[in-house]
């Protein structure tokens, strides 16, 4: 009896310790970026572009990176949806259930999911060089799209696959075609698709490696797809590597802004999926 008690106490403490470590590291991260960044954070930071160059400039703000990041995130999410929705519908509704094509596709997504984003960056860069293109907003969007497609597709696949067979039985026996059935499935899976979108856009906005070579960096706000675009993760990277203390502090302000945006996105994801699933069942 006593041994069991000790055992249970030991493992319970271990679990509490692990939980505290995780929660603690989140608090530490938030504390560090807030403490270091809050002094540099002011209205100029989010309303102005940098003055005097991002590497050494102490004035201006990060509007270029905020806008660039939003452009890339929104662009890549839309492009990603455009590509992954048909794939997911195909393997779930058009192809036979659990066909080998579906298995291969799912496996491919798993492999793509595991590839580090710097590899996607290098891949995008190679293609740009081949076509003789410069770093641009478009190249950034395309590369980030490649990064998030596996996330989007896998998450949506999971939702659509879990939809009970009764739904397709119902539409088919009403004489619906596969396309009409697909539309009903999309509607049924809307909360899950929403979550997938917000999950992948969280990844898209935070990824530095894939945009390093492809989107480039600039002090101005891009006005066309062929211009380079700044992003928040790279703003942190470049400013942190500056030898000037004030510029380093600005990196923490950028981190703070990025974290707040990601936080808003994930809270939004929670809120929307809750709200949408309430309507459903």
């Amino acid at each position, binding site marked *: 009896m006593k041994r069991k008690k000790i055992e249970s106490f030991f493992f319970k403490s271990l679990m509490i310790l692990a939980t505290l470590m995780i929660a603690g590291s989140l608090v530490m991260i938030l504390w560090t970026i807030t403490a270091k960044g809050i002094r540099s954070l002011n209205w100029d930071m989010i309303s102005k572009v940098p003055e005097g160059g991002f590497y050494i400039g102490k004035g201006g703000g990060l509007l270029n990176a905020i806008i660039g990041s939003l452009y890339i995130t929104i662009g890549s999410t839309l492009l990603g949806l455009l590509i992954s929705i048909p794939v997911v519908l195909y393997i779930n509704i058009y192809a*036979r*259930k*659990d*066909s080998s094509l579906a298995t291969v596709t799912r496996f491919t997504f798993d492999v793509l999911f595991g590839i580090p984003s710097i590899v996607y960056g290098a891949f995008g860069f190679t293609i740009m060089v081949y076509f003789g293109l410069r770093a641009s907003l478009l190249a950034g969007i395309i590369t980030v799209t490649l990064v998030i497609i596996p996330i989007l597709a896998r998450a949506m696949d999971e939702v659509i696959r879990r939809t*009970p067979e*009764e*739904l*397709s*039985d*119902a*539409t*088919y*026996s*009403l*004489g*619906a*075609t596969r396309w*009409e059935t697909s539309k*009903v499935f999309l*509607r*049924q899976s*809307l909360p899950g698709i929403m979550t997938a979108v917000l999950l992948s856009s969280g990844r898209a906005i935070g990824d530095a490696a894939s945009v390093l070579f492809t989107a480039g960096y600039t002090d101005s706000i891009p006005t066309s797809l062929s211009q380079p675009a700044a992003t928040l993760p790279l703003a942190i990277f470049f400013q942190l590597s500056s030898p000037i203390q004030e510029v380093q502090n600005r990196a923490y302000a950028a981190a703070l802004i990025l974290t707040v945006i990601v936080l808003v996105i994930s809270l939004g994801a929670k809120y929307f999926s809750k709200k949408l699933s309430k*309507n*459903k*069942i």
Partner: protein
Amino acid sequence: MTFEAPHIRVKDLNVYIGHNHILKNISLDIPDKKITSFIGPSGCGKTTLLKTFNRLLDRNKDVKINGQVLVDGEDIYGSQVEVTGMRRKMGLLSQRPFPLPMSIYDNIAYGPRIHGLRKKKELNQSVEHYLRATGLWEEVKGRLNSPATSLSIGQQQRLCLARGLAVEPEIILGDEPTSALDPLSTQRIEELFLQLRDKYTIVLVTHILRQARRVSDYIVFIYMGEIIEFGPTEELLLNPKQKLTQEYVKGYIS
């Protein structure tokens, strides 16, 4: 048993899923405008047989279907058959009601809409007609735009029936349609079947003998993928000819 002009005629049907021989040499006539029930223990193949009638089965991988299923004399497994049009002839009621993710109104209007009905007035008429036919109209007329999932499960099943009827089928297939319902809702569905018998051929899968007795004109007893006995309800239940049927009816095998 054979009929002169059966609505559905099954000829030498064999169904395999993977290496399992699920249905063995099934030959069966389903009479027109009658209620025919499939009874038998779980896993005997009665649902599988029902699903071969509207080709919902052959979407699965590893399914092999040999033989013929003739609906109105036409083989639905023939190469010329347009599957979506064929399925439209048969309304399906599944074990659990599954409303489409839309409003009550849109659930009924869905079928007519995908078949090209666009006029608001005709859609309204159709929705009202089929909601009345299933006794739902008085209960839902004030909230046609609320989500179908806000209905009780018994109401949802009647909504699913109305949704199926709205595409004007000739046959209604019911796959244990009352198994998720309370006794009162079950009774309503059974009453509806009896009312609908004049206009539709109804095929029911059930594991409740009393239900089969209450609603059906004919009963097919299936055991281990084979049809053991087929006959008029009273005859099959009261004077079964086969030993297996006797044992099943008495409750020795289930």
